[in-house]
């Protein structure tokens, strides 16, 4: 067998090995591949920068563990950015399968361990931030659309208590948020359709500004909403997450104290994705070159 043929019929396990390495190496040693910040991502960053300190944003965790690698870093970046800007953050979860744990894990990753019912409310990582005043976690609510409609002016009916079971009225921030009017915008971190609901219902009916962080697979659909102006910003997949993370880390280098301990972030995920894509693309090209050369040779041989 000559080289071209061997290339064409390469044992697939070599390819597996490369893909495997491409997934492990960037996690341990970041490659810091370039990110070009795109318009929809810059829009989110600019909006957060334009808010006055003390304004409230709402972050909704509308995804489960299987898309964690894409959505988790978006949640981290928006929470860190908001707190670094002295905005206040309300976290909720609407995704039935695991949204509730995702939200708690990412919140604690950013602010440190919490145990509000037992009095542990001060953030370890942001010394001047306190649970219930600067950030709060309302917990999970089922019912999707119905819950979102009700939240518009009856937040406390949807979430009578926070995640830890304390009535919302016992917290300053909880008292203040009665509906969408009290928040500057809603950011939905979405796997599937819930992000579309935020645009279709909450933005369309109540005029609340909405931004979405979606998975790459659903990005084209969401991009259409962004273009139609139904969401003011869009983070699409690992790429969008990495761009936003990059903007935040540039502007707030002090956050590195927190983020340096993260084994995983969107930048690393983006490295993995780019490398794997490059490997596959390269192999497709090699395969085709070999194929064409081989075919030519066969034709000439005849």
């Amino acid at each position, binding site marked *: 067998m000559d080289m071209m043929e061997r290339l064409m019929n390469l044992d697939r*396990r070599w390819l*597996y090995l490369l*893909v*495997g390495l491409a*997934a*492990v190496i960037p*996690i*341990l040693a970041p490659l810091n591949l370039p990110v070009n910040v795109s318009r929809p991502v810059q829009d989110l960053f600019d909006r957060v920068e334009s808010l006055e300190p003390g304004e409230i944003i709402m972050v909704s965790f509308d995804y489960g*563990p*299987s*898309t*964690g*690698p*894409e959505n*988790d*870093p978006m949640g*981290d970046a928006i929470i860190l950015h908001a707190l670094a800007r002295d905005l206040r953050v309300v976290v909720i979860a609407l995704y039935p399968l*695991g949204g509730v*744990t*995702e939200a708690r*894990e990412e919140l604690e*990753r950013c602010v440190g361990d919490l145990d509000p019912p037992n009095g542990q409310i001060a953030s370890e990582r942001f010394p001047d931030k306190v649970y219930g005043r600067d950030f709060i976690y309302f917990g999970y609510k089922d019912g999707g659309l119905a819950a979102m409609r009700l939240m518009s002016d009856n937040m406390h009916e949807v979430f009578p208590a926070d995640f830890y079971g304390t009535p919302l009225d016992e917290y300053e921030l909880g008292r203040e948020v009665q509906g969408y009017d009290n928040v500057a915008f809603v950011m939905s971190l979405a796997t599937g359709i819930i992000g579309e609901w935020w645009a279709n219902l909450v933005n369309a009916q109540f005029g609340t500004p909405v931004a979405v962080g979606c*998975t*790459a*697979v659903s990005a*084209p659909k969401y991009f259409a909403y962004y273009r139609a102006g139904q969401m003011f910003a869009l983070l699409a*997949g*690992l790429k969008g997450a990495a761009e936003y993370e990059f903007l935040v880390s540039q502007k707030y280098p002090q956050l590195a104290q927190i983020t340096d*301990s*993260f*084994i*995983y*972030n969107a930048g690393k*995920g983006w490295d*993995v*994705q780019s490398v*794997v*894509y490059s490997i*596959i693309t390269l192999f497709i090209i090699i395969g085709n070159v070999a194929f064409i050369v081989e075919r030519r040779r066969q034709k000439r041989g005849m």
Partner: protein
Amino acid sequence: MDFGTVAATWLGAFFTLCILSFLYKDNPFFRFAESVFAGVSMGYYIGNTFGQTFVPNLVHPLFTPPAGTPREWILVIPLLLGFLLYTRYIKKVAWVSRFSLAIYVGYYTGVNMMQKLQGEVLPQSADTILSFWRAGTFTNVGEWISLLVVVVGVLSVLVYFFFSAEHKGAIGGVSRLGIWFLMVSFGAAFGYTIMGRISILIGRVIFLINQWLGIGNGGVA
């Protein structure tokens, strides 16, 4: 961390590596993991079916109704239909087991047929009825081309699916175009889906590095 969590992490890592080893080749570790997987998952769904379906929908309302609510005797019918499935093990009355299958299939066939007509055929066709004379359309050539591509794409793919005409002449040409549209769609969707698959793999890698080997402050659960 308590012992239970540590043990779960180590077992989880072991099973993760067992499955990954299949990429190299079939081996006893994979076969072991595959068997455990089949068994555990089946056990899981047995528990799940009882917990999520039988107990709330059958046991509680029929056998142990909460005080003050009457027994729902009508649930004897589905219970009976469920039992009928098992008559197949008794040769003489095995044919009775078809009753349950027939009702089940019939019911969902009716539901699905309506769902397909109402939820797919009508709205998808309606979405294809577009105007080429919208305000500004002719000034925006890009938009106009997009509209044209949508309409031609939908129609040519539909023509490809015509079974009563041979793919010759004009119909052959249009259906060839339909195939090209299908190929664009398949190629693009394939290339695009890779992204989602990569993030699943990242999830596993982080599990191994962070939770098992204990490096770093994790992300993905």
